[in-house]
């Protein structure tokens, strides 16, 4: 009973700011101190839709960085989750190092090298910069999915004739589905909302968070519309992850 009320309260807490954003985004004219806008219109949304390239760039970088982080982080998460390392703390520290300084500093450090390597301002460069920040989160979430239970099931599948690829598809992936979905969601959101590192290595390339911020002061209506645009894929990712992680039991 209490849980249900608490759940509603939390839902309200999240819904209110979004409602406020929606109103702000369609308020063509809203002078203080009026509580409601004087004139509604689509000016903000029109302006926001011009950020299509930034949206596409952010989406592509986030998807590729998340995918790469899962591919690279999978073996690491596995080894850590099965407690096969003698000093997991050291690996954690190395992994978390880029998170200990602000993303802009990490990005700035990378930029120097990216310019030398011709990666600055390119999509692969942005993916790499985001990967550094996404990977630790993905590994930390993913490792909790592995353990004796999964490896025992894989052993069972081995003896019953399943080849390595089939074990992955029939046993491992279904077993870690929930944690994989959570790791992918977190990884996507970290990349999607990345400001500092994108600013540092982007060389002016439009990414959605970079496009949004200047409008916050100059034109709140466009900023609100952009914020809604910004929220959309995050909400879709959340919905997909929730669906995927729903326990089949």
């Amino acid at each position, binding site marked *: 009973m209490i849980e249900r009320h608490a759940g509603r309260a939390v839902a309200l807490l999240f819904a209110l700011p979004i409602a406020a954003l929606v109103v702000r985004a369609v308020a063509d004219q809203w002078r203080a101190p009026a509580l409601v806008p004087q004139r509604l219109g689509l000016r903000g949304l029109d302006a926001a839709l011009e950020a299509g390239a930034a949206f596409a760039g952010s989406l592509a970088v986030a998807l590729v960085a998340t995918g790469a982080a899962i591919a690279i982080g999978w073996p690491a998460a596995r080894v850590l989750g099965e407690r096969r390392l003698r000093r997991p703390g050291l690996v954690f520290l190395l992994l978390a190092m880029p998170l200990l300084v602000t993303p802009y500093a990490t990005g700035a450090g990378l930029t120097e090298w990216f310019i030398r390597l011709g990666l600055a301002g390119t999509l692969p460069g942005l993916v790499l910069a985001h990967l550094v920040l996404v990977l630790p989160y993905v590994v930390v979430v993913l490792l909790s999915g592995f353990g004796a239970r999964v490896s*025992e099931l894989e052993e069972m599948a081995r003896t019953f004739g399943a080849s390595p690829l089939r074990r992955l598809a029939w046993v491992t992936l279904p077993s870690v589905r929930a944690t994989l979905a959570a790791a992918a969601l977190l990884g996507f959101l970290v990349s999607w909302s990345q400001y500092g590192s994108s600013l540092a290595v982007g060389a002016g390339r439009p990414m959605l968070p970079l496009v949004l911020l200047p409008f916050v002061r100059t034109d709140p209506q466009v900023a609100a519309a952009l914020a809604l645009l910004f929220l959309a894929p995050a909400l879709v990712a959340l919905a997909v992850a929730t669906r995927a992680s729903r326990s089949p039991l």
Partner: protein
Amino acid sequence: MSALACSGVVVSAAGAPVLRGVDLTVAAGSRTVLVGPSGAGKTTLLRTVAGLAPLDAGEIRLGARSLRGVPAHRRRIAVVFQEPRLLPHLDVADNVAFALRAAGVRRAERRRRARALLDDVGLGGFADRRVRGLSGGEQQRVALARALCAEPELLMLDEPLAAVDPNRREGLRRLIVDLQRARAVTTLLITHDRAEAAELGERVALMLEGWIVQHAPPRELFERPASAAVARFFGAANLLRGDVRAGRLAVAGVDVPVPGPDGPATFTIRPEHVVLCDSAPLAATVVEAVYAGTHVRLALQAGSQRLQAHAVGGDAPPAGARIAVELPVDRLWRLPATAPDAPAPRAARP
């Protein structure tokens, strides 16, 4: 069906030898129980045969095939693990038919065969259920059905009754034996329980500290142990050592007739074969009397010789009682002079 033949199997884990040269043959279509204390290497041998643990030296053959370098998923060996290891995202029938799916059998056919096997293990009607709600015994039956569904050349079961309620074990034990007989599948079964070994095995192999020390029909291990260590494991706790002269051995100053030629020898006799009587030359004091449900376990002291005996029925002598003991000559077993590959006996027991 194929015979399993292990010869000179050596396996080490973290530098320490676990299997020290195991020779074990299971005839095609027969059932052997591998028994031994925890840590003897039983599960390691099973995992090595299954291809789940690497073989350091030696040879494992299944029928005409050598299993050297054959990956686990191509060995055609089915394992019932200690835990059921069912896939929680599949229903019961899909779990049973797992090996058929790996073999590329169509789904409808898979489920038909899984249903038939579920009937065989007493779980008819369970096909569409989730595995989560099943009891430990039911899950282990599903695991057994899954193993049989694979139609393996070798079936291995690792302590299959360990996770099952004690009062459900009898039914599952009978089921395993019946199904094995009906299908004549070559079977290797692991347990640490000697009574279970006797009930489950056509033959029993005792493993101690990485060796097979005796492999024979169950009665032999109980009544004709190959060494003192075997006798001890199977509960023949009475060891009589000495010089046989004129067919007799001095036990606590009394000459007891024994089988075999004169000379130094060690004899064993099972506690349940020691006869308690009112008058006999060999006298003993009851040191301890422990009620064990089906019998009273007596610790006896006859001079410097300790003996164990079982008193069946209501009238067991209490601790401190003076009684007479008879050691029937046909129940005394003379240990072979050279025990085959037996590890050195540990410090003598008090």
